[in-house]
């Protein structure tokens, strides 16, 4: 019997899939006229939009959900307290995710094209001085558009005005001065950063020349009881500034400039150092603003309605405020970028439709984010912070507090802070990118997992120390000066590469989710434990990664040398 063969693929083709053949000549006939719009059905539209939204939604959800869930579960399981107004908090968190999603997409479509064009043409067409002044304004505008900056106003609701009038004033009545001080600080940092790129300056001396006056200002402030309250705020502001708007926008300008004006330095570290400068400058400017307000402006504390009850003060006015805040943040920056591109570098704006869509999206996104911040993240962080002391001490409003014996309760708090820092940092998408960069820059000596673990460990340790500060009510100066001293010594010992990596790594850790949560947590905790101000946790979360990355860097260097010696 002859064997007949049948190709399996032919079998499948016949059985599984229905093939139809259409000539491409019919789809694209030789009429010579350009094609019109594509007609699509409603279902097709859904099929296009669904993956577009889902991928972007998931991206933000991966960052927000674990942290929010961690806080909520800690409160429910360990502290055995229900989340107050949990429906509102949940809705707020959803709106934070949605807002962040829209904002990031809008940023990419609406703002980044300006950054790229301006960064490329500005240094070609204009002199150094113009570039620097535009960079200065850009730094200010970008800072004002940073989503995390809204948290400063939010924090004002929680600060008790009678305890720290200056701090309260700087967050409420004079909050615009504080925000402008931060923005001017970033503007100055951007200018210095571009000069650094152009001339190939090394970061190390710059760090020291910034740290010494900042430390001097801090020590001066600590001698004045009113000014001492704002030290934590000032050092925290450094962490607020380096977010998703400032860093890419300013980097594209900086790298464009450095690329045009060629220098002999190796380009491997290009772009590094700017985050560090932008975190250090605002500390000094906010301290200066505080000194200015303290001595020249009246402290009006007759506004206690703000602090009565966080939840009840949220109303339609909060929504309106969130939208207003968003418009204030985005419109000036966009207008400035638009004017620079049209009038200064005289380049046409391509794809205006998509850019306008992006701007609208950014606007809606940041408004939604602000609203979600007020309804979701801030109350959640604040609640958990307020409940934490109940773990080890008696709080009047809670019947069965303390929940644990004093020592166990303290450990629970510290472990909570530690894992919060560790988890939140590992979830930050920027950390992964940093890990890859570092591994490349060190030719694989500093492995990516090692980078990620040392940064996360640093943040975790920093948060823990910050919580200790709150619980035992120690002035923040006692933590800031020694830790930065240690960081300085390590900086002296390390070589330029690791200094850049270590100092920049601290900026990675402070995304638009971590900052509001940690600040709210700190304020809640400080109110409950009777500490004067709730700031300073972020400052600690910024300095410890520097220490951990630099120490691991030193260790890696030593192992490298040892290997080289053995090899010879």
């Amino acid at each position, binding site marked *: 019997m002859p064997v007949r063969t049948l*190709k*399996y*693929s*032919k079998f*499948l*083709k016949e059985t*599984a*899939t229905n093939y139809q053949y259409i000539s491409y000549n019919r789809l694209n006939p030789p009429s010579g006229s350009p*094609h*019109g*719009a*594509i007609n*699509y059905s409603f279902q*097709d*539209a859904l*099929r*296009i*939009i669904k*993956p*577009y939204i889902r*991928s972007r939604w998931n991206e933000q959800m991966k960052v927000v959900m674990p942290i929010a869930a961690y806080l909520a579960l800690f409160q429910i399981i360990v502290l055995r307290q229900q989340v107050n107004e949990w429906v509102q908090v949940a809705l707020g968190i959803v709106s934070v995710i949605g807002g962040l999603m829209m904002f990031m997409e809008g940023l990419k*479509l609406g703002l980044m094209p300006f950054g790229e064009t301006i960064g490329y043409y500005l240094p070609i067409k204009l002199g150094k001085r113009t570039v620097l002044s535009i960079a200065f304004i850009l730094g200010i505008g970008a800072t004002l558009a940073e989503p995390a900056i809204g948290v400063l106003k939010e924090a004002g609701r929680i600060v008790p005005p009678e305890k720290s009038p200056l701090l309260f004033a700087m967050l409420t009545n004079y909050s615009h001065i504080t925000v402008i001080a931060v923005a001017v600080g970033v503007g100055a940092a951007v200018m210095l950063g571009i000069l650094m790129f152009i001339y190939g300056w090394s970061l190390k001396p710059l760090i020291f020349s910034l740290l010494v006056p900042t430390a001097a200002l801090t020590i001066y402030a600590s001698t004045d009881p009113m000014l001492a309250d704002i030290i934590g705020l000032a050092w925290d502001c450094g962490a607020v500034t380096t977010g998703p708007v400032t860093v890419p926008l300013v980097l594209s300008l900086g790298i464009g400039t450095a690329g045009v004006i060629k220098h002999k330095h190796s380009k491997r570290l290009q772009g590094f150092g700017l985050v560090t400068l932008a975190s250090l400058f605002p500390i000094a400017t906010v301290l200066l603003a505080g000194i200015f307000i303290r001595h020249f402006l009246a402290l009006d504390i007759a506004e206690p309605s703000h602090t009565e009850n966080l939840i009840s003060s949220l109303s339609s006015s909060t929504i309106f405020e969130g939208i207003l805040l968003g418009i204030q943040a985005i419109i000036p920056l966009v207008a400035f970028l638009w004017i620079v591109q049209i009038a200064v570098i005289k380049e046409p704006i391509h794809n205006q439709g*998509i850019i306008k*869509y992006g701007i609208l999206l950014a606007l809606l996104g940041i408004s939604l984010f602000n609203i979600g911040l007020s309804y979701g993240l801030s109350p959640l962080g604040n609640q958990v912070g307020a409940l934490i002391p109940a773990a080890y001490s008696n709080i009047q409003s809670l019947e069965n507090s303390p929940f644990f014996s004093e020592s166990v309760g303290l450990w629970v708090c510290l472990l909570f802070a530690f894992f919060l820092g560790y988890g939140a940092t590992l979830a930050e998408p920027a950390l992964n990118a940093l890990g890859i960069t570092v591994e490349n820059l060190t030719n694989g000596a500093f492995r990516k997992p090692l980078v990620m673990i040392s940064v996360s460990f640093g943040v975790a340790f920093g948060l823990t120390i910050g919580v200790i500060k709150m619980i035992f009510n120690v002035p923040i100066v006692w933590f800031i000066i020694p830790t930065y001293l240690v960081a300085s010594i390590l900086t002296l010992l390390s070589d330029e590469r690791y200094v850049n990596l270590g100092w920049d790594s601290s900026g990675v850790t402070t995304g638009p989710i971590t900052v509001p949560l940690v600040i709210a947590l700190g304020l809640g905790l400080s109110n409950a434990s009777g500490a004067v101000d709730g700031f300073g946790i972020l400052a600690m979360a910024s300095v410890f990664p520097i220490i951990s990355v630099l120490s691991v860097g030193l260790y890696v260097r030593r192992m490298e040398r040892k290997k080289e010696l053995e090899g010879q």
Partner: protein
Amino acid sequence: MGKGNITVLTDLNLITCIVQKGAADDIVKAAVAEGVQGGTIHYARGTGIRERLGILGVAIESEKEVINIVVSTEMTDKIFEAIYFAGKLDTPGMGIMYVTPLTKAATYIPPHLLRENEPS
């Protein structure tokens, strides 16, 4: 015969698939699951479809990924189908793929196949 041996592979096609940035990994995964050896992905930028989709165009990335997969002629249809469905190519703006016949190719060939192929 000259200095060395080259064994030339025949009976193969190239499937090229152009999709939006980020979609390539799923497609290659689907193709590998169907039995291809691997795929090459490179980045590109596309024009045309975005403008013609009107307002929906914003949902289409202008950055693309181009996937090249070498397949045996017998597998071609199977992989073609797998990619079509994994990439949802029946939706406007998702992408396009095509099959090109290859005349010859060369790569590492496992020794046992070489031995079988030797004229005895």
